[in-house]
């Protein structure tokens, strides 16, 4: 899925998080918490503790927070996912239940219900849920990717790879899925396939030195003169692009 360009910078996000965790939460600084939640959503980061605290703060002070209905539901979703990460299924289920009342036919809520099953380790139930929802909406990208997540969480890397490959056959533009697939292939020591995936990522995001560095690492790992030369080429590109900010 193409994510729109984030409105806040990563630095702003880190600064807001730093402020919130040191003083902002104690002071119940609602505007900062709201801003933080939006920023995390835009950048697609996984920060369970601060998100849980920020979302709880905002949802616990709805009148003072002056939050729009849409933002409120977004905060509830973020709280649910953070709660799952922090091993608090009760909070998550409470949020999901409220969201289900608000959106009775929603597939997005269905995905959250599936994630609650995943957190409980009920893999087959989660897969069944996603398959059932996918029958009604075969093109729901998030659900297809969740199936791969279920397999990855069980350590079944080959199954996860298969799911993602099927997904990418249809949605070739999802560079983040290509990135995930590259990492899975690397874990399985299937370096040639990993390189293919990294090339797709590079095609989508040629300006990010991070990707050039990682494809160089895989080439280096493969060894042999040709691959080392390719690695050197990509490392040079990465250094060129990164203003020497990247320690690696």
């Amino acid at each position, binding site marked *: 899925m193409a994510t729109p360009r984030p409105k806040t910078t990563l630095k702003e996000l880190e600064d807001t998080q730093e402020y919130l965790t040191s003083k902002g939460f104690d002071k119940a600084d609602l505007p900062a918490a709201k801003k933080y939640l939006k920023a995390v959503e835009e950048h697609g980061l996984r920060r369970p503790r601060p998100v849980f605290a920020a979302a709880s703060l905002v949802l616990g002070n709805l009148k003072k927070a002056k939050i729009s209905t849409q933002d409120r539901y977004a905060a509830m979703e973020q709280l649910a996912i953070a709660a799952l990460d922090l091993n608090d299924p009760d909070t998550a289920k409470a949020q999901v239940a409220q969201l289900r009342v608000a959106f009775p036919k929603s597939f997005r809520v269905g995905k959250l219900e599936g994630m609650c099953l995943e957190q409980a380790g009920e893999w087959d139930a989660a897969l069944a849920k996603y398959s059932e929802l996918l029958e009604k909406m075969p093109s729901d990208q998030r659900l297809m990717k969740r199936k791969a997540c279920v397999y990855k969480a069980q*350590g079944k890397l080959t199954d996860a790879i298969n799911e993602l490959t099927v997904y990418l056959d249809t949605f070739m533009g999802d560079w983040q899925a290509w990135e995930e697939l590259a990492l899975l292939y690397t874990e399985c020591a299937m370096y040639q396939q990993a390189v293919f995936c990294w090339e797709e990522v590079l095609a989508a995001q040629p300006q990010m030195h991070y990707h050039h560095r990682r494809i160089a690492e895989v080439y280096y790992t493969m060894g042999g003169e040709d691959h080392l030369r390719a*690695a050197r080429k990509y490392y040079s590109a990465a250094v060129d692009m990164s203003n020497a900010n990247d320690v*690696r």
Partner: protein
Amino acid sequence: ALPHTPSAKMGVKYTLSEKAYVKLILHALKFPLRNVNGVLVGRVVSDSAVEIVDAIPMLHSSLAVTPNVEIAMEQAALHAAATPGGDYTLVGYYHANELHADDRFTKAAAKIADAVAGGAAACQGGSTACALLIDSAKLGSEVVG
């Protein structure tokens, strides 16, 4: 009981210092959603005893690819050799998996452990390097709040 499973040569006793243990556990806790690894610094006291005095955390990403591991291990080995107080070398490797209750030692981890063992063998003429896999299930249950 310490929540880790040492896998080592039979008959060799490994003593893990508090500093080393705390560092490697904290490293694993700092990156709960990732695989982490690092090396153990210490010295071979005798044929059947190895003293581990320190743990040097290495990576929390790109663990299945080689360049960063190679550089980190070289630097760690130099650091160990330069530590005052004895002839310290890399005597072991620790690893923590990102998945809960995952007690597999992946191929990549095994290769790195072999490299540490190889380095240790070169220094000591007989490998007594050990590999530690952090038991994430126990880690999760022992950390409260």
